[in-house]
């Protein structure tokens, strides 16, 4: 149970970290609570931060699913790096796309 990040145990599955049932139920409760909050905050106007709030809550939920349901919290560093690289390159895609489209100007040819 304790040595979860050493994966070269030749004896097979016994060393896998098993998340106790109450943890799963707590995570599920937290996810439902956050869903209620997501719907509730739409009635409050945060102005320009509306999208940030919605996105922030969604990301907390995503982190709970990744960490506990997908066992990433107890997984090895490699798998965490793989998923982090996916998220990183998604941010790169977003950043440069927004930079490009946000800075375009309509140019009329003087000719």
């Amino acid at each position: 149970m304790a040595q979860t990040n050493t994966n070269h145990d030749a004896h097979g599955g016994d060393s896998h970290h098993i998340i106790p049932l109450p943890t799963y139920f707590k995570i599920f409760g937290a996810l439902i609570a956050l869903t209620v909050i997501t719907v509730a905050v739409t009635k409050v106007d945060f102005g320009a931060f509306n999208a940030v709030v919605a996105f922030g809550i969604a990301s907390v939920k995503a982190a709970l699913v990744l960490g506990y349901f997908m066992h990433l919290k107890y997984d090895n560093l490699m798998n965490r790096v793989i998923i982090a690289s996916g998220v990183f390159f998604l941010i790169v895609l977003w950043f440069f796309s927004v930079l490009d489209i946000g800075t375009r100007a309509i140019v009329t040819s003087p000719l």
Partner: protein
Amino acid sequence: MSTAKSSTPGVHQHAHHYDSAEHEYQSSKQGLWLFMCTEILMFGGLFVAYIIFHNMFPETFKVGSLFTDVKYGATNTVVLLFSSLTMALGIHYCQMRQQQKAVIALAVTILCGFAFMGIKWLEYSHKFHMGLLPGDWYAGNAEMIAAEIGNVTIPSNIALYFSFYFMMTGLHGVHVLVGMGLITWVMIRTMRGEFGPHFYTPVEGVGLFWHLVDLVWIYLFPLLYLVS
């Protein structure tokens, strides 16, 4: 291959090119995480496009979202979150060698998939009926639209919203259907007693896929149903 049959039921023999069963398990899981990475990038492209077009035409997305019903969206969110819990429980019971409970948990997960797709079908058929279709297919019925959302000026490029709506929920829905098929497959294998504490890699892998489907929906719900 990893599905090498052994003579004793329930005892999995790891493939010869792995040092051990643990080595096989970790390699399989790493491959699945790489696949999760490609899935994130595929859906990510759509999310980035959504963010950009939403910034360019905020009114289009605001009016478009009036046609979605938060009750349906929120119910489907709860259904998927619950199915993620039962999927995780399915893996847990395999790890604990509680075969019967594992089968029940996986069966409930599949039922949640049906519930999700059923609600999706209600939503889709309502939109089809009103002519709220993507791109060139858009044929919105003015009377029905007025009856549903009242006197709101419909932006001329409203079809853009429905292009995003159907593309994103459609691709997600296909993932739900594939996931349901995969869970059925591991459920049958669980019934046959093929999984236990020493070997449950396919259940874990299918679980990762199912949780990813949930993960995508966590972002889709506020994006499509709660646009302000």
